[in-house]
């Protein structure tokens, strides 16, 4: 597979994952805010903004309309849902020949549908609905990717993009919630933990595992270490490890080893992590370590398979 194609598939997938994550956070947040006190809702909005943009916002600046516009439709904001989707589509357009018609048309249609949407048009009714509908189409896109593309090298680059991004997105949410709990004042309440699970599509799967009793330690255990739930860190790390074993089959062993060594280390960190040890304040450190390792894998992936100097292989 051409290195440039691998690069575009990887980023197409990362941006699509980011757009999906943003849509889900906004849908859940807009649906749940009516049940919160203004203070709780503000604290929760602040966490959403920080999770999606990395910025801290003063509670006085929190207005649901303004925030939603910025996170969803502000094209000057690189992390806005529509900007992520546009980037996913731009990358897909550059590798049309590596995608099926179905994948391209699903993504293209979704973008063309969302691009002209204005805040005023969604705010008059139920604003969350648009994001729910967008999510449904994004799930359909994932299904089309799964079922119309050969599960070969290109597909594994899509997997890598999706799950490296997901580790970071889920990691940041966990970090914010557990750090706030640690700090004590105005920390997450029962309802916030519930919302955290919903942010990760995890509410129903969690209750099947642990019943409806919501306990931060169980949430951490589930979202970090459950090997079967698709939005857990462990699940994504497994996918990343598996994908790394499948891409660039013909690359020289030394290049492959550089990447696989890092993958092995990441997998060991997650496989042998213990939630009990993390609960006394170690969640943030653990997540920071996992995130850092993912960044190293990203760099190694690029230097081994994508940006390597041609002179080094002649």
């Amino acid at each position, binding site marked *: 597979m*051409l*290195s440039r194609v691998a690069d575009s598939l990887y980023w197409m997938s990362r941006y699509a994952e980011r757009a999906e994550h943003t849509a889900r956070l906004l849908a859940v947040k807009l649906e749940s805010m009516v049940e919160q006190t203004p203070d709780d809702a503000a604290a929760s909005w602040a966490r959403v903004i920080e999770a999606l943009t990395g910025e801290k916002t003063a509670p006085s600046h929190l207005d649901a309309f303004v925030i939603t516009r910025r996170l969803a439709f502000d094209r000057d904001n690189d992390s806005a849902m529509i900007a992520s989707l546009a980037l996913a589509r731009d990358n897909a357009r550059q590798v049309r020949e590596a995608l099926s018609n179905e994948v391209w048309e699903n993504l*293209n249609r979704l973008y*063309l*549908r969302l691009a002209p949407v204005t805040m005023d048009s969604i705010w008059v009714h139920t604003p969350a609905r648009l994001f729910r509908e967008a999510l449904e189409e994004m799930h359909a896109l994932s299904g089309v990717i799964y079922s119309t593309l050969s599960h070969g090298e290109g597909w594994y680059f899509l997997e890598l993009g999706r799950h490296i991004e997901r580790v970071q997105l889920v990691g940041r949410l966990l970090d914010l919630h557990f750090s706030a709990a640690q700090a004590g004042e105005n920390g997450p309440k029962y309802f916030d933990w519930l919302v955290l699970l919903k942010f990760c599509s995890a509410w129903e799967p969690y209750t099947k595992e642990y019943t409806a009793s919501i306990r931060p330690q169980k949430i951490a255990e589930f979202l970090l270490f459950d090997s079967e739930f698709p939005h857990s860190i462990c699940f994504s790390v497994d996918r990343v490890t598996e994908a790394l074993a499948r891409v660039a089959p013909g690359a020289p062993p030394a290049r492959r080893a550089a990447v696989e060594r890092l993958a092995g280390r990441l997998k060991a960190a997650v496989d042998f992590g213990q939630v009990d040890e993390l609960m006394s304040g170690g969640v943030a450190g653990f997540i920071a370590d996992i995130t850092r390792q993912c960044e190293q894998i990203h760099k190694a992936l690029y230097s081994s398979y994508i940006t390597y100097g*041609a002179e080094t*292989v002649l």
Partner: protein
Amino acid sequence: MQHEVFANTEDFGGPDIVAGPGRLSRPGVDPPYASYELGKPYDEMFTREAVVRAPYAALDSRLSTLPLEELNRRQQACEQSFLHQGITFTVYSDNRATERIIPTDLLPRIITAQEWSRLEAGLTQRIIALNLFLRDIYNEGRVLKDGVLPRAMIYGSKHYRREMRGLPVPHGAYVNICGSDLIRNESGSFVVLEDNLRVPSGVSYMLANRDVARRAFPAVFRAMGVRPIEHYPLELLATLRSLVPFQEEASIAVLTPGVFNSAYFEHAFLARQMGVELVEGRDLVVNDNMVYARTTSGLKRIDVIYRRIDDDFIDPLIFREDSALGVPGLFNAYRAGNVMIANALGTGVADDKAIYAYVPRLIRYYLAEEPILENVETFLCREEKSLQHVLANLDKLVVKAVGESGGYGMLVGPHATKKEREAFAEKLKADPENYIAQPTIQLSTAPTFVGTGIEARHVDLRPFILNGADTKIVPGALTRVALRRGSLVVNSSQGGGSKDTWVLSQ
């Protein structure tokens, strides 16, 4: 959330029954043809006596039973389909990029088997002569020694590539992919307006138009015995493979300038349909005169490149050094015979508007045959007698700059103001060699759906000719339509659209 209009077969291409022989519609009278004007030009659907021509009878009986709203719905479905497939070009304004689809018209343009067989023979004859001409001027130059055309025209052409002299080209096929523009004149014969021998585009629209027209009129399509064109990518692949001896194992790539090129959709489309790699200049590396693509697993050798980049930009070491699209060292690899490039470099010298005027003479010279397809009558302003004729008749002629394409740098005499003609005359006198002139040609008109009904619009015809070990022409073409009423300009950059072309099997 339901956007896929085609999903509903009742909506689109549903109950499409061909009515029995009924009363034929009359243009200018019966709906949906109430505003259909028959003028001086040949009309594809109606005779001068305003009677539906036989090949259009089935389509006519279908159209006269379809309500206007239904036609509109089908037209919209077809535009939606183009939009979703990404068959668009981008317009930039107010710092915002807007995507527009290439306009397409639902109604097919029909060509009979008899007309096609003459076209096919004529185009084959023409491409063979043009390739012989190219081989000649890049080798012994017999045609120049024999004085058939002036040396200065060749050696002075900015498209003549000295670097190609003496270089062997497989099968002598310099032009592997050709798109010729033809028009139908007032008497109904096809004549050649222009040969596109560099990087002709539009074949993906030919195939995309087929897709929508077949879905819009499935029963008419079935009943009429339309010849298939879907094998074009396969024929293209075979043509590219024929350029190397180890055909099946050849590693082939389509070289594109990238996603910002207006024909990018076509490049990706052809690569996908052929199952070959789509590469950009930055994907390729030349080492030791071999061409490689950078892949995740390392470098992979490339044997044949179907390039969609102009000569000037293909190798910054030989041609334009500011080109970021090309591949440094590519030309030397080509010279060394380690990679084949289609089309060969330097073919532009033969599709120059001045050379065009000589093509009938070239056919006689190389093949000792009379041209099957004629040219449009052309005056070379470089010849003093012709120049005087052109200056005296500017109000009746179309004058074109030799090196331009896409409808730029031209004067349409009858539509220009006196002032514009005078200004143009000065340009002409200053640089006569740069201009040719032709009588205003009346492009034929064809039925085109305009929302409120069906009206006559001017059309041309661009068939695609493949030439490797042998010559193949898929029985179809891109029919370009001047969508503005009365306009003669079919270029997509200036308000043109396109429609499907049905070549009948008998």
